[in-house]
């Protein structure tokens, strides 16, 4: 697939699914154009509900629709969906295990110029902490599409984290999600392994390329199914590689770094360094400048891998 934003691919997939699945209802909170669920609105206006700028009520209504037999997708920006509506998701969606899919776009620093209030950096932490929640972070358009099908065709609550900016293409149309939350090994390597999710997967592949020029063989794992996950490949690379580095467009506190480190601490104690936002709010600026400023570029990942390897030597 072309380099398009995961939000676009997800919105397009909903339109396809809506053709054969009449139970599918999509809700928005005045951001349908931006979240790209507006595509569904235009195609199936009778099955699109705009809640207005009222995210908690959007989630509550989605729960009521799901309790009445619908499959409800509630979509907005991640800061308002996972943030403002958190407690509605907790008590009205996850606790009763209702068929509500929270599809949040504009996650991370890639939001750019809108700045800190709109750059959600804690949503993986919040959603991962909820029992019964499945948490998915697609690395590119093809994976976002797969995840739309997975979420709609599976019972129960989902959180899907989507990005505003285009994602570089990693997978082709033949890609299928690893079953049972498996971690996809995109590139093999012996010295170190980068474990990444979302927009950081493509950057991790670039980082592996940079390191290869220095003779460092680095694997790249796509940890796109945050919960539940199967740690088989993670453990395999923790055993094989000398260091693990995580990469996420999210806070290091409670995100992928925390998840990988705690899993390995229990199952195979390993040195794990993290690339991510270090306990800070975002800021206005062009996305690429923000990634540099917050040290989450491919060069930063490569540098972190070198650091990890040096500390062990």
């Amino acid at each position, binding site marked *: 697939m072309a380099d398009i934003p995961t939000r676009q691919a997800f919105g397009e997939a909903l339109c396809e699914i809506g053709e054969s699945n009449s139970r599918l*209802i999509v809700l928005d909170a005045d951001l349908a154009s931006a979240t790209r669920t507006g595509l569904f609105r235009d195609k199936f206006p009778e099955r699109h509900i705009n809640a*207005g700028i009222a995210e*908690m009520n959007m989630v*509550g209504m989605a*729960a009521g629709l799901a*309790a009445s037999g619908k499959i*409800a997708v509630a979509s907005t920006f991640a800061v308002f969906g996972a943030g403002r509506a958190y407690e509605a998701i907790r008590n*009205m969606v996850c*606790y009763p295990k209702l068929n509500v899919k929270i599809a949040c776009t504009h996650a991370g620093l890639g939001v750019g110029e809108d700045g800190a209030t709109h750059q959600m950096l804690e949503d993986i932490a919040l959603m991962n902490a909820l029992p019964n929640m499945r948490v998915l972070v697609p690395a590119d358009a093809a994976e976002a599409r797969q995840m739309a099908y997975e979420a709609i065709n599976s019972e129960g609550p989902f959180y899907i984290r989507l990005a505003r900016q285009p994602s570089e293409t990693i997978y082709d149309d033949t890609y299928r999600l690893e079953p049972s939350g498996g971690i996809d090994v995109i590139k093999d390597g012996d010295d170190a392994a980068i474990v990444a999710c979302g927009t950081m997967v493509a950057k991790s592949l670039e980082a592996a390329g940079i390191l290869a020029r220095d003779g460092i063989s680095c694997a790249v794992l796509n940890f796109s199914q945050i919960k539940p996950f199967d740690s088989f490949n993670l453990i395999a690379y923790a055993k094989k590689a000398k260091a693990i580095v995580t990469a996420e467009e999210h806070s290091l506190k409670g995100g992928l770094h925390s998840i990988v480190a705690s899993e390995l601490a229990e199952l195979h104690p390993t040195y794990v360094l993290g690339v991510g936002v270090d306990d800070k709010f975002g800021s206005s600026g062009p996305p690429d400048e923000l990634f540099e400023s917050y040290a989450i570029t491919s060069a930063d990942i490569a540098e972190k891998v070198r650091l990890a390897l040096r500390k062990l030597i």
Partner: protein
Amino acid sequence: MNSKLEEIALEMRKNIIMQLYSAGSGHPGGSLSAADIIAFLYFEEMNIPSFSDPNRDRFVLSKGHAAPALYSALAEKGSIDKGELITLRKLGSRLQGHPSMGIDGIEVPTGSLGLGLSAAVGMALAAKLDGAPYRTYALCGDGEIQEGIVWEALMAASHYGLGSLTVIVDNNGLQIDGPVSDVMSPYPIAQKAIAFGFDAFECSGHSFDSLREAFAKAKASPKPAMVIAETVKGKGVGFMENDVGWHGKAPNKEEYEQAMACLEG
């Protein structure tokens, strides 16, 4: 008709007190104020051929802390065994402190105030999308309507023209911290509901004739409707009535016996 409802409501009140005494904690005041409303809904107003009927009327106890009143009604209705009532709030019981899934008649978990109404709007919306004939009822507390989501939900119900939705406010005038008018006044309620596109009907929440009249008007209205039921917190147990101290406290043995004697009158 009223005498049967009165009989059921009395039985429910006894079971509310018995459950709370057995649990050692819980909310008597708001359970007792809502008992007549809930009895009227389950035993006259709502059409529930069975709890698995997709066209059954939906009831959402948005003021979920009145769970003992709901459990008492469901025990009368047969979805809860009467012997189970003493398990309220005990480890392993289906009768959670606030209503939870897994019991016929409980559509969504409630207790986090405002969310139940929001979900009820979703249910009424589903009925409209499907052309289904069922009605949806949500019972809120007067303190509960201080929650912002309540007004988001009312706005949405009105915007989507959900004439099959009836919101009931158990207007007992008290909340944990004191009189509702002192803590954060939501008054006047009817005018606010009307401004949000609802029809509003005031009635006595302890008179079945008055409830009957208000719900008939609500049903006849093409708009979503609000029934504002004037109630007495702790109704039926003299020493609990209008006493905010009985919002969230269970009776001890002596108080339990006194309350039962009061109800048996």
